[in-house]
């Protein structure tokens, strides 16, 4: 079990990505496991002194020099205060917590990453890791949907990966208003619809999904219709994780604890559990 005691970290830079979402670069003790040894899909607890602590997914690479990238949407008590934070401000970090994506089981597979909105943050961490060892994997396909083109995170980076031929990218937005000025090939379609025209080999593919809970049931049923088995469908669940170590009692999914047994679960793990996919 990882110590829940936060270690000091400093905000190095803040880059607004959209109107409500920013990329924070933090720096903590070099070599500390909170920065150096996490799996994509795991999370850390970010403490803002005097305000509170929140679970945040990693969105970058593990780093030995103490750097941590976090993608923060300013919607809650702590994240609203982070909106007025400045480079140089002190924060605390602890982790890594939970279970991430099962990278070992992905070897030799085609990977289908499906991100909705802010769900791109943990999947970016996964994507970067997969690209680093791309020779171990087959096709890397990313389906990414957001409210509107302006809300697509890391767009330049993703288009660059696509240009290099490193990934197959399928973008979609909910609202047509701004799509005309959007990136090439961006469709006006809800996330599950992006799956329709996709040609995948369900027997040699795995899916990694992170997005708003509302899209999960439809994504899962579409993937199953295409023949993908439940053990190949991996979902990152959001719950109210207050302690990160399985003790505060808030984040249970059935009798599984999101903070310890998840937040990444295979659909097989979630079979029959009420409210797992809402």
């Amino acid at each position, binding site marked *: 079990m990882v110590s829940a005691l936060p270690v000091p970290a400093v905000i190095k830079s803040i880059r607004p990505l959209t109107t409500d979402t920013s990329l924070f670069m933090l720096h903590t003790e070099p070599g500390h496991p909170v920065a150096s040894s996490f799996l994509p899909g795991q999370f850390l607890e970010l*403490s803002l002194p005097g305000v509170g602590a929140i679970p945040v997914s990693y969105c970058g690479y593990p780093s030995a020099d103490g750097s941590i990238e976090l993608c923060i949407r300013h919607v*809650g008590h702590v994240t609203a205060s982070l909106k007025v934070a400045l480079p140089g401000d002190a924060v605390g970090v602890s982790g890594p917590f939970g279970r991430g994506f099962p990278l070992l089981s992905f070897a030799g597979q085609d990977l289908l990453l499906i991100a909705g909105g802010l769900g791109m943050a943990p999947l970016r961490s996964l994507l970067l890791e997969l690209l680093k060892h791309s020779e171990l994997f087959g096709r890397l396909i990313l389906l990414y949907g957001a409210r509107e083109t302006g809300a697509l995170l890391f767009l330049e980076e993703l288009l660059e990966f696509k240009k290099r031929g490193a990934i197959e990218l399928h973008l979609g937005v909910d609202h047509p208003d701004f799509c005309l000025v959007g990136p090439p090939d961006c469709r006006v379609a809800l996330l599950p619809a992006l799956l329709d025209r996709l040609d995948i080999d369900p027997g040699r593919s795995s899916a990694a999904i992170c997005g708003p809970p509302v899209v999960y049931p439809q994504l899962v049923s579409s993937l199953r219709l295409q023949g993908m088995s439940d053990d190949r469908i991996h979902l990152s669940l959001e719950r109210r994780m207050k302690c990160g170590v399985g003790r505060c009692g808030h984040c*249970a999914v059935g009798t599984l604890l999101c903070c310890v047994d998840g937040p990444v679960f295979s659909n097989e793990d979630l079979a029959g559990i009420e409210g797992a996919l809402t």
Partner: protein
Amino acid sequence: MAIHFIADHNLEALLERLRRYGELHAPVRGDDGVVRFSLLIPGIIPDLTALRTLLPPKKYLLHPRETILSYTSEAGYQLPVEISPPLIMFGLHPCDLAGINYLDRIFLGDEPDPLYAARRSATTLIGVACTPDELCSCQQILSPLKALSDLFLSNVEGGFAVASGSPRGDELLEGIKDILEEQEGDMPEDSRRFFGHAVSEQPRHELDVTLPEWQEYADKCLGCGACSICCPTCYCFDVLEFSGLDGRSAVRVRQWDNCLFKSHAQVAGGMSFRKDRAERFRYRYLHKYRSFGTLHGIPSCVGCGRCRVVCPTGIDLRPLAERLEEVHHG
């Protein structure tokens, strides 16, 4: 077989002797008629006949509200330094002992919770036998939880038979041996017979959410959370942080939380994962009878009956549990 016997008229002498080992707390009936675990002042007789105190002994191990981290801009986040004075808890019934056993499994282990571990190691548990009443269910549900104590007192004619359950208990027995009598006889039948049973390792099917009872219970439930506050094994806590007025310090506290409250499953942005009272009610049921995480399969209900006493609408989960769980009828 010989037993250690302490006569009723030596009870006060025993209590006086126990005070040498730490602060003595026991069930005491207040002027308001409420029985509470509280400091036992010399001259006050503990109420050993009351079957249940209003709050369970968890209040000593997990304070209703406590500082878990303190922050200063110079030192960062630090664990609190708390000195736990020795505490002797006298008069714990088997259900409360089993409740502490459950909390131990959550808060001790690989990485013990520092506050809980410090208080727990400073605590001596002295149990007293009891006879279950119609609100108890310790005699109905097989539980793998163990009603462990350092000393345990069982009623016998004219006094108590005293048994040690730990090296700490042996030490206490040695310290009180001059007020004990060695008598021929057998230890009375163990009233803890429904604790310490192996339960089936078979994975159980998920709860059937379509049962009409869920909504019927939810319609009666006011969502007040009294059942959780009084439950010896409800440990959910909320985590809050408060800034110091100097702007350079802060404290992080945890306080008892309640899964029947709407806020319990709410995340940033207002979305809740348990919007309906029936879902919240089922969450509580799940925790009480199936447990979460590593304790999956171990019922946390120890059958003390407090939830039935305090529920303003008289909700009793036993009929439902009898249908959905493996229940032993004694």
